[in-house]
């Protein structure tokens, strides 16, 4: 039953080319195009500089390790642009049935819990697809840079890199799904696709303001309970810093990992619970 809901949502989403493009493909595409442009510009600048140096100076730029670059791409797979553009997919999935007045077509065919969880499941699949596309874009970025600059291409991953890669991807995935939960709650509560799109953006902006100058004005510690619980972005950054911390880096403050995990879990589950509770008592004949 839940599988029916997930599959039907995925089928419908797959037919919505605009939503899929803007949410999962646009940012990676921009990354590739921007990256190639960046490489071309830097090459011309470097060429200007190296023409004044020894002829083999370009060769001293070193090799491109695709394995290392993949880990770096995983670290930015839940960047701000991805978060915002993924909201297009989230809003479409979570509030599209209100906009198209199609709830009554499907609401009698499954339980309301399954209908909501089906949408969440479909968004998780979309998130995985978007992250894979972003990683591919990261690889293309690195490859194009190596080819444009004539660098040697290598691929080596040690155990630490592989662990970091997996953890960063998992963390990024949780961050995107968690952020989209705000869209779910906003969409169900307001029955509006625009609200599903913009409420998380506004909230995210407010949280970033609070996380930047806000906590300085309030004299909060970024690692304190209130900072971590109010700003899941800080929790995400804290966990990411712990994963990418190199050997010899100072240890994270005691209890920070727990606070960060609780913060992400809270922001993941509380909007979901709120949306399910509200949806269960909603009159779906009024769309």
């Amino acid at each position, binding site marked *: 039953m839940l599988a029916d809901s997930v*599959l*039907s949502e995925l089928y419908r989403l797959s*037919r*919505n*080319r605009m939503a899929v493009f803007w949410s999962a493909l646009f940012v990676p595409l921009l990354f590739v195009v921007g990256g190639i442009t960046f490489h071309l510009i830097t090459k011309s600048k470097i060429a200007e500089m190296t023409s004044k140096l020894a002829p083999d100076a370009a060769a001293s730029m070193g090799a491109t390790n695709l394995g290392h670059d993949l880990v770096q791409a995983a670290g930015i797979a839940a960047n701000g642009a991805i978060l915002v553009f993924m909201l297009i997919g989230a809003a479409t999935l979570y509030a599209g049935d209100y906009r198209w007045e199609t709830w009554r077509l499907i609401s*009698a065919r*499954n339980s309301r819990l399954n209908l909501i969880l089906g949408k969440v499941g479909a968004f998780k699949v979309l998130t995985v697809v978007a992250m894979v596309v972003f990683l591919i874009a990261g690889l293309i970025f690195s490859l194009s840079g190596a080819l444009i600059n004539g660098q040697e291409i290598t691929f080596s991953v040690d155990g630490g890199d592989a662990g970091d890669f997996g953890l960063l991807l998992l963390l990024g995935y949780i961050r995107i799904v968690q952020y989209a939960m705000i869209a779910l709650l906003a969409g169900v509560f307001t029955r509006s696709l625009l609200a599903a799109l913009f409420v998380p953006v506004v909230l995210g902006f407010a949280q970033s303001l609070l996380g930047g100058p806000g906590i300085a004005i309030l004299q909060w510690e970024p690692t304190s309970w209130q900072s971590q619980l109010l700003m899941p972005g800080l929790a995400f950054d804290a966990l990411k810093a712990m994963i990418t911390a190199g050997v010899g880096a100072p240890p994270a403050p005691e209890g920070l990992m727990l606070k960060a995990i609780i913060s992400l879990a809270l922001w993941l589950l509380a909007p979901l619970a709120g949306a399910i509770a509200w949806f269960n008592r909603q009159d*779906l004949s009024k769309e």
Partner: protein
Amino acid sequence: MTAVIETRNLTKTYGSVRALDGLSLTIPRGGVYGVLGPNGAGKSTLFRILLGLIRPTDGEAVVMGGRIGDVAASRRMGSMIETPRFPPFMTARQVLVWLSAAHGLKADTARVSGWLERVGLTEAADRKVRGFSVGMLQRLGVAAALITEPELVILDEPTSGMDPPGIQEMRALIRSLSEKDGITVILASHQLLEVQRVCDRVAILNRGKLVREGAVSELTASGERLRLSVTPISRTLEIVSSLPGASGVLEGDAVLATLPRADTPALLRALVQGGVDIDEARWVGADLESVFMSETGSVQTPETIHAR
């Protein structure tokens, strides 16, 4: 006679408005069942409750053997409530595949094509829904209600927005659903002539209450009257009214007399003796419209027929 739907004392209030007022109704399995009523009678509210879209304030309903909202029972039903809407970026074919998937059915190309053909959308099957006319949306709505091959289908105004040939095709489709596919069809329509032609039984609702229920043939037979084409009309009306248990009303240039059939010879004798020239006298059945209007006390105007 098994029932597909049984409601007991079903009540729904919106603030101080009672949309349904203690409705008890049993809809038998098989055939086409019409639900009639003027605007605000509670038809759409009844359907919305039966489909689990809204909850009743009081009372209970059993649908396909399950309580309201019982998903297993709901999955044996199909429905089209009001003007259907679909994701605009999908084609008609994709809509049916999507709804099949939502129902846990594999995308069966033959089944999808079959229903598109039956509702007359084969040529438009691969066109985006955003370009569909209201009539085409209605056809797709009917196909969407039927794609999961339900045992019971609820159709609310299925011919709304259709042209006359389309209405005729839809009427034929509804009859075939009942007769060939064995699907119980519940139909709400303001087109009383359509209901009379298509339905086997009807329920007439007014202000949230059931005011009349029965086979269409019984309802119309009970209102048959003697139509008299006569001269002079005023004298005819006097004579008809003077007979015990009889009454007459003017309809166009004729008089419609209500009286027991057995009194027909006596009336005709009285008219001849009273100097009335009788051009024609024949018994006519009441149409559903007159039954409807007498039960609901409503006057049909274009607004009441078409407005929701």
